[in-house]
């Protein structure tokens, strides 16, 4: 079996901070306050997507219409990653490219749902009413626009990535497994190049509902990520955005003269039972394993802000005395399935630039060292799933 080095050669990002790896690097290095919207979904705050001209990556209007927002964000971001890697429109490379997408789904039709809820209050024949309303009011193609595996399907259609297509589900854990699987396949020689990532649309009430059923959202406006334990609600402020990466074996990248941002040395993941096992200890173990011979210079944390969970992660990271930590959800929100590809991408970008960007929450994050050559990326799921990636300079 082979033991290939796995490098990141393309980074596609969009979020409330803008579009593209460079725009994000500038935003994280700048002093601008996070972009938030606390009005539309009051009392919840979201980080809304910045202005996007969908035509840039999804040229056909017909394709755009076939997608709900999260699919559109993902398809667009995948295009950015392919373009960044110099693979976009390369038919030979795209048709042999593997794909793993971490997906949620279910952007429902809010208007239809509202009608049904209203009818339900005045009718006793709920089953009959449901059939009647759903049969007549639902847009036939909405099903596909909200179906989990159709983000990957749309990427195949729009960008012609067809080597393979796998969609992982399961919130943050899906994002961790997606990168873990793609890395393992490339390392072992089962794949040479892969597109991996996810997308999340925070600006939809059903997405908020998914969290709020368990009381996980912050309800009193934005606050710095590491300072939410005593605030109202559950701590999470979600963000709209997407993060896709192009991963390649170092040989494959070299042969085609591609620039490598960084190499992924390892992905360490687990899933403890949160009610039974100690989360702080688990995070410390994962970070310890990822720091095997040398502690990392920088930790890009995907902490969601969820109360208790984020505190546990912080207390684990604090035990690594040298750690420079950046909790990026404080700046652009929590992207759930896309969170791990986001932090891995930002860790790679930091290694490529050679330094850490300034603290986002200066009270809780140290200034970075002048130069870095190792970085970790963490994603500790709001409910389950824990993962850490170790990256080094390519």
């Amino acid at each position, binding site marked *: 079996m082979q033991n290939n080095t796995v490098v990141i050669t393309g980074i596609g990002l969009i979020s409330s901070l803008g579009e593209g790896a460079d725009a994000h690097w500038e935003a994280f290095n700048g002093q601008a306050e996070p972009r938030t919207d606390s009005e539309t979904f009051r009392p919840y705050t979201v980080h809304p997507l910045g202005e996007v001209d969908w035509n840039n990556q999804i040229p056909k209007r017909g394709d755009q219409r076939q997608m709900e927002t999260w699919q559109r964000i993902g398809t667009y971001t995948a295009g950015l990653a392919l373009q960044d890697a110099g693979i976009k429109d390369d038919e030979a490379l795209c048709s042999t490219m593997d794909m793993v997408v971490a997906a949620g789904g279910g952007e429902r039709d809010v208007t239809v*749902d509202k009608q049904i*809820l209203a009818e339900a209050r005045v009718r006793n024949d709920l089953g009959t009413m449901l059939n009647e309303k759903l049969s007549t009011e639902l847009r036939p193609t909405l099903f596909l626009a909200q179906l989990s595996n159709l983000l990957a399907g749309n990427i195949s259609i729009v960008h012609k990535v067809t080597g393979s*297509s796998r969609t992982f*589900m399961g919130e943050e*854990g899906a994002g961790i497994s997606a990168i873990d699987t793609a890395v393992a396949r490339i390392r072992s020689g089962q794949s040479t190049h892969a597109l991996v990532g996810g997308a999340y649309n925070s600006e939809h*009430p059903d997405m908020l509902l*998914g969290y709020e059923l368990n009381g996980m959202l912050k309800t009193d406006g934005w606050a710095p990520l590491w300072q939410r334990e005593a605030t109202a609600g559950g701590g999470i402020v979600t963000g709209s955005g997407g993060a896709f990466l192009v991963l390649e074996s170092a040989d494959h990248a070299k042969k085609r003269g591609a620039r490598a941002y960084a190499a992924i040395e390892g992905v360490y993941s687990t899933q403890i039972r949160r009610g039974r096992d100690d989360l702080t200890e688990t995070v410390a173990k994962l970070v310890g394993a990822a720091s095997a011979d040398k502690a990392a210079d920088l930790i890009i944390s995907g902490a969601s802000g969820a109360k208790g969970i984020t505190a546990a992660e912080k207390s684990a990271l604090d035990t690594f005395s040298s750690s420079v930590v950046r909790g990026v959800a404080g700046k652009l929100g929590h992207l759930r399935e896309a969170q791990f590809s986001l932090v891995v991408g930002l860790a790679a970008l930091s290694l490529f630039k050679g330094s850490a960007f300034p603290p986002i929450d200066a009270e809780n994050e140290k200034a970075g060292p002048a130069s870095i050559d190792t970085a970790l990326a963490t994603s500790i799921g709001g409910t*389950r799933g824990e993962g850490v990636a170790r990256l080094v300079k390519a």
Partner: protein
Amino acid sequence: MSKYTDHLGRPLVAITGLGVVSSLGQGKEENWAALTSGTSGIHTITRFELDNLRTQIAGTVDFLEESSKGASALSQKLASLAAEEAIAQAGFPVDDFGGPLFLAAPPVELEWRNRFALDALVKSEGEPGYDLLLAACRRGPQVDMFNTVEFGYIAECLADTFGTRGLPVTLSTACASGATAIQLGVEAIRRGESDRVLSIGTDGSVSAEALIRFSLLSALSTQNEPAHKAAKPFSKDRDGFVMAEGSGALVLESLESAIARGANILGIMRGCGEKADDFHRTRSKPDGSPAIGAVRAALDDAGIKEDAIDYINAHGTSTPENDKMEYLALSTVFGERISSLPVSSNKSMIGHTLTAAGAIEAVFSVLTIQTGTIPPTINYDNPDPAIVMDVVPNVKREASVSSVLSSSFGFGGQNTCLVMTAEPN
């Protein structure tokens, strides 16, 4: 190539445990008896009201306590039953399996009954809608409802019950999902990450809304009477698929470790192949090239030629589009031999179990190898003259089958095929 490795020097993957639940019953024995006797599990739906619905039939699993408790609860129970049967057959402790879990599960949303229940908590407070549903949540957590919408929940429960290791993978590749769960397991064993894996496909998601969604895409058969005749793959008058439920589970192991522990080898998972389609969200590329590519990739991965395949367990959904495209793909790969090679569709009896289909049909493929009985394609009364295949019409057939191709094709351009054989070489 040693005794334990394949043509590419990779560890051979043995199948040592199988479990299945479908509308035909629980367990291999019940299912196989029904399937080989040409019994249909398709019936008129009783789970929800049928007024205003064009399609009123399905292959729902109605015999479990969870059958009326929602898609998440039923999908979990189905997976659990199949997994337990598979792990027990493989001879591992059912609470300490010791390898990773790959779970194909349906993407489910908050059930209407729960939306109505939330609204009932707050209806005195104003107009219905998401603002009010969210306000209802702020009165206190609804953990049971929350669990049903967390895609990672079922896998976590299964991981805990069966003692699988690590972060489980939950996946969806539409109607190819079950095959993808197997493929991911095979790849993990080939990488040496584990000497055993548990791959499951489960689907208990037939609800009014799910049915209406497929109905609006004109994907479903509307031939409600008689229900058992509705699924008629490869027939001229086929008019859509029939939604169904079930679960299939497989314990896969490196052949070397299976033999070392004296396990009973049921078959070999020899190869997996896939190819995505970039043509359309629900339609296949007219030249069939992605499906052809997936079949050829599976044969290549297995290291065998097409003439070594004895039987094809077809995707055979009974939609006009799928069956035509599948015939195009198979006739392209197998040439003239396709007219005499047995090709049957389990879906004629169990319906389309969607997320579970690839796994259930892999279980039935291995049973075909083991028993030498090919299950029929029932309801084949009116052959499609454009599809010239031996579909094992209406009655099972005894035959020596040492290798099977099982195909899965899904919305979103998902095409995955598996090759299973009796012997390692």
